[in-house]
């Protein structure tokens, strides 16, 4: 085994010998489990939860391996390793998901342990990317660089990664458990749509202590719920005790009779938030104390891994281009680049949403090229966003023209971040055994229809999200325009919702009219957008116009247009 590990200045958690041994032991354990399955010692039913907790799903055509990208942070050697796994064990590409993970869709069971070994060699794993356990923790893709960030969520995200890894008590929960964490007042991690959402902050009561605001019971799927406030402030030292309390109540009382009702959101709903929190508080009072206390020194030690990269005093100014390049560059700068807290440094989002492409797909060659770009322009670090794009978090503004030209060559510079073409879509019926309908061809058709960057820029911020079934992996509930595949007498049809959003004003979209056939969807979306363009106030975003005018208004206008 040749161990590479993260190099360079990337602000990424570096494994110590303990972490490395742990992941290696996990690979060895899985290799043994896979061998026992192949030898017939384990039934598929018994193997299933074991492989799931290593991210291995059985899909329509093959096994799918879901690799954890903890809180969406990657170093360039890690991205190169993913590229290599894609070449060796998949068909030369990978697929970034809405949970900041990466999926390989064509894995053979006989080779799965080798793929996990290749991950372990670069300090990565697929632990708990599925199964009824605490899943990979997600966060803001701009964590640590965002200008509006109050506290760095990555420190706590890493603590949660460790604490939740092979937890002896909470690995067989009623259902999966997703935690998202942000440190910014502008939530880019959709914390209110997770089983537990955390916002890192200083004690609002003024003690000066660091801690978190805790939200609980949010989620999408068949029964969408916006999370409820658990506690306005849990001090850092008690954070793990409080999470243990929540999980213990969930493990003991969550429903196990019906998979559709097994998520914590249903328990919170059925008990009522008051009774649920009473039980949590009871546990918390007992758990609080030295055994579960998160030591200051441990936090400080982990915080060191996320120290700021060695920035120059100033990253310079965005170059001014002329001629043919001027408009395209300006459009890309406006849509795909944000300023960060470091003077003259920007974060560049790489669009994995080319017009007519598959959202989140990336070839191994593109991964290698992006790793090179990260080495050259972004301290060897790459982020994955929950909108299925990548980010170079520390780019000198002065180098933006070079970066743009390089990305354009790689077809990763579509100027559509946050715009109509930046569609989130689940794998849908093309891959997934749960889906009712296809998602990818629909995303392709819509992005083609709105391919014109000028038109997208004019429409402005608009989040289109597509799920192939009610499990809502494509987050349709919180799409400004949400599209849900439904099975209507064996035909794939789509229901369209409006007004959903995933920020701190999280809301679930409302149905805008009867379900329509796949071919009609792009036209209906076009009509919805026309209504918006006609009736918006100056500067008013789509989602705000829907809130002001009401979904009913859109519904009636759509009917009148028919």
């Amino acid at each position, binding site marked *: 085994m040749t161990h590479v590990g993260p190099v360079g200045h990337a602000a990424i958690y570096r494994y110590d010998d*303990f972490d490395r*041994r*742990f992941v290696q*032991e*996990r690979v*060895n*354990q899985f290799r*043994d*489990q896979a061998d*026992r399955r192949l030898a017939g*010692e384990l039934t598929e039913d*018994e193997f299933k*939860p*074991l492989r799931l907790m290593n991210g291995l799903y059985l899909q329509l055509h093959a096994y799918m391996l879901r690799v954890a990208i903890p809180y969406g942070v990657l170093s360039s050697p890690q991205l190169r390793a993913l590229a290599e796994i894609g070449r060796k064990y998949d068909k030369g590409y990978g697929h970034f998901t809405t949970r900041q993970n990466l999926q390989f869709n064509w894995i053979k069971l006989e080779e799965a342990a080798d793929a996990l070994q290749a991950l372990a060699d670069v300090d990565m794993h697929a632990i708990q990317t599925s199964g*009824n356990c605490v899943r990979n923790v997600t966060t803001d893709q701009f964590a640590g660089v965002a200008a509006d960030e109050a506290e760095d969520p990555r420190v706590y995200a890493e*603590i949660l990664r*460790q*604490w*939740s*890894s*092979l*937890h*002896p*008590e*909470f*690995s*067989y*929960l009623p259902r999966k458990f997703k935690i998202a964490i942000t440190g910014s007042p502008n939530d880019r991690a959709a914390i209110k749509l997770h089983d537990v959402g955390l916002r890192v902050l200083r004690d609002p009561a003024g003690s000066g202590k660091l801690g978190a605001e805790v939200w609980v019971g949010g989620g999408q799927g068949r029964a969408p719920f916006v999370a409820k406030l658990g506690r306005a402030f849990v001090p850092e030292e008690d954070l793990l005790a409080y999470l243990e309390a929540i999980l*213990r109540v969930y*493990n*003991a009382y969550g429903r*196990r009779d019906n998979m559709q009702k097994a998520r914590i959101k249903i328990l919170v709903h059925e008990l009522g938030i008051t009774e649920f929190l009473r039980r949590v508080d009871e546990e918390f009072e*007992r758990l609080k104390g030295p*055994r*579960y*206390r*998160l*030591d200051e*020194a*441990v936090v400080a*030690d982990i915080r060191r891994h996320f120290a700021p990269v060695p920035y120059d005093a100033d990253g310079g100014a965005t170059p001014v281009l002329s001629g043919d390049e001027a408009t395209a560059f300006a459009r890309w700068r406006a849509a795909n680049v944000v300023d960060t807290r470091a003077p003259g440094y920007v974060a560049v989002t790489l669009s994995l949403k080319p017009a007519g492409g598959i959202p989140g797909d990336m070839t191994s060659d593109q991964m290698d090229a992006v790793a090179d770009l990260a080495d050259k322009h972004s301290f060897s670090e790459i982020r994955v966003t929950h909108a299925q794009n990548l980010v170079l978090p520390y780019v000198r503004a002065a180098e933006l023209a070079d970066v743009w030209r390089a990305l354009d060559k790689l077809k990763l510079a579509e100027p559509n971040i946050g715009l109509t073409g930046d569609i989130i879509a689940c794998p849908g019926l093309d891959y997934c055994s749960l889906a009712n309908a296809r998602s990818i061809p629909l995303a392709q058709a819509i992005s083609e229809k709105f391919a014109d960057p000028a038109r997208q820029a004019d429409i402005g911020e608009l989040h289109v999200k597509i799920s192939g079934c009610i499990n809502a992996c494509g987050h349709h509930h919180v799409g400004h325009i949400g599209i849900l595949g439904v099975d209507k007498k064996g035909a794939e049809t789509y229901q369209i919702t409006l007004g959903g959003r995933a920020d701190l004003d999280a809301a679930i979209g409302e149905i805008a009219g009867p379900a329509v056939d796949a071919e009609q969807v792009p036209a209906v979306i076009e009509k919805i957008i026309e209504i918006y363009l006609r009736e918006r106030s100056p500067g008013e975003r789509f989602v705000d116009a829907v809130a002001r005018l009401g979904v009913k208004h859109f519904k009636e206008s759509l009917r009148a247009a028919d």
Partner: protein
Amino acid sequence: MPLIEQGEIVADAWVEVADDAALPAEGGAIISLARRIAEAETLRGRNQPLGVRIPPATRAEALAEHLDGVQLVVVDFPKFRDGRGFTVARDLKERFGFKGVVRAVGHVLPDQYGFLVRCGVDQVVIPEGAKVETWRAALDSFTGAYQTSVGDDRPLSPLKRLLNKAG
């Protein structure tokens, strides 16, 4: 069915007794929680080892006041996916300070053995014909953990612990 403790087959000195059957005059008897509560008075006079089986949907606190004189608690795993027993076992040892033996019965997999032990389970009833080596190996799969375990871990830091068998 075979019984294992610390990865080795051990003899089972206990018998399960149905609610309507008489208790044996000698030796360990495992009775239901309901019977433990209903016959508390009579049981006090019986000077033989007593075990109680706790139903899957019952939390450890239901047994807390009835642990006096109990040497064995049997925790039921109706299906390996049903993880409530992990919390029951941990509560018994950590919260209620139960010093006796916790035994897991029902459907559990070798791959869960390490978790069971770390939650305070001492004995596991394994299926007839199961390879005990597989269970023993499962116990030794990991030399470290990121969480506290019942009883025997050695903290390197609050998040990193060596499991005792490692050293």
